[in-house]
């Protein structure tokens, strides 16, 4: 029986969500998305540059993908709600990643404004995935407010530092009922693999793929690592010990047993 992630009422096959920022070009991004075989892809909204003749990014995202707009740029709940409605009006569907950031140095989410936005948008029928600072009490509130998942950060956006918040994320995994998706900071496939091994439902990766020397190969690497981590989680990782345990028999050998 296939292992699927139930999210926003859908059955999702890939536990690797991909962000579309920072790619050198849309065609390159398209190749990476195809290599990653993600089912959920994030995009942002911005004012059009009336001068430019920029391509439409949507044409470079596989039609099979769920489009999830983020509210980046929002500094409070109201702006996040406004951006979410614009995204929906633009026909991208009703999946929204809430991202409310006040701090431009670490781009850390504002859990309280994020919660307010979740409350409003969940009521409006959006499928809401809040990007948040890992905190059990606020994660519980996001869940109770109707969040489809919670997305704690592993480390600051784009820092590629990995799961530095493991201690807190592990607690979310044990205590929160909706899927826990680590978003931001994952720098390598082993980071992503580790998240799935500890029971996270999925990961969202952007920078580590987009700025790799070969983004298409890196997308494939993340895809494999996420699959490996999930398989390992389901297969039951053995616990670790502090001393050794022989993998070869330690019985006497080549010696006189009378000795």
């Amino acid at each position: 029986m296939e292992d699927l992630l139930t999210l926003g009422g859908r059955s999702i096959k890939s536990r690797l969500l991909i962000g579309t920022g920072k790619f050198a070009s849309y065609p390159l991004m398209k190749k990476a998305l195809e290599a990653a075989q993600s089912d959920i892809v994030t995009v942002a909204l911005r004012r059009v540059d009336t001068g430019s003749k920029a391509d439409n990014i949507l044409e470079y995202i596989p039609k099979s993908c769920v489009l999830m707009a983020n509210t980046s740029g929002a500094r409070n709940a109201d702006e996040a709600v406004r951006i979410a409605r614009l995204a929906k009006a633009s026909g991208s569907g009703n999946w929204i990643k809430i991202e409310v950031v006040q701090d431009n140095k670490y781009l850390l989410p504002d859990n309280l404004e994020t919660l307010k936005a979740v409350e409003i948008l969940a009521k409006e029928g959006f499928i809401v995935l809040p990007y948040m600072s890992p905190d059990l009490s606020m994660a519980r509130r996001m869940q109770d407010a109707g969040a489809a998942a919670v997305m704690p950060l592993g480390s600051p956006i784009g820092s590629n530092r990995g799961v530095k918040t493991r201690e807190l994320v592990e607690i979310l995994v044990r205590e929160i009922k909706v899927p826990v998706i680590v978003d931001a900071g994952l720098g390598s496939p082993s980071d992503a693999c580790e998240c799935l091994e500890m029971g996270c439902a999925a990961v969202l990766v952007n920078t580590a793929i987009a700025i790799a020397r070969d983004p298409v190969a890196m997308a494939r690497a993340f895809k494999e690592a996420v699959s490996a981590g999930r398989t390992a989680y389901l297969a039951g990782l053995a616990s670790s010990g502090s001393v050794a345990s022989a993998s070869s028999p330690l019985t006497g050998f080549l010696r006189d047993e009378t000795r």
Partner: protein
Amino acid sequence: MILTLNGKQESIEKPVTLDALVTAKGLCPDKIVVEHNFSIISKEDWSKVTLKDQDMIEIISFVGGG
């Protein structure tokens, strides 16, 4: 009359519809969303909205983001 388009002030001689504005700016209707004084206007209604002095218009489209 003066409009605020995407945060920038612009003066135009005579009243125009959203429709006309989008065309004048050379924008592809399929890839944008238009907000007129904080309410979203669907494509089919662009021709019905004529801009007045001090109106605020936001024209938005998708870009890459994580």
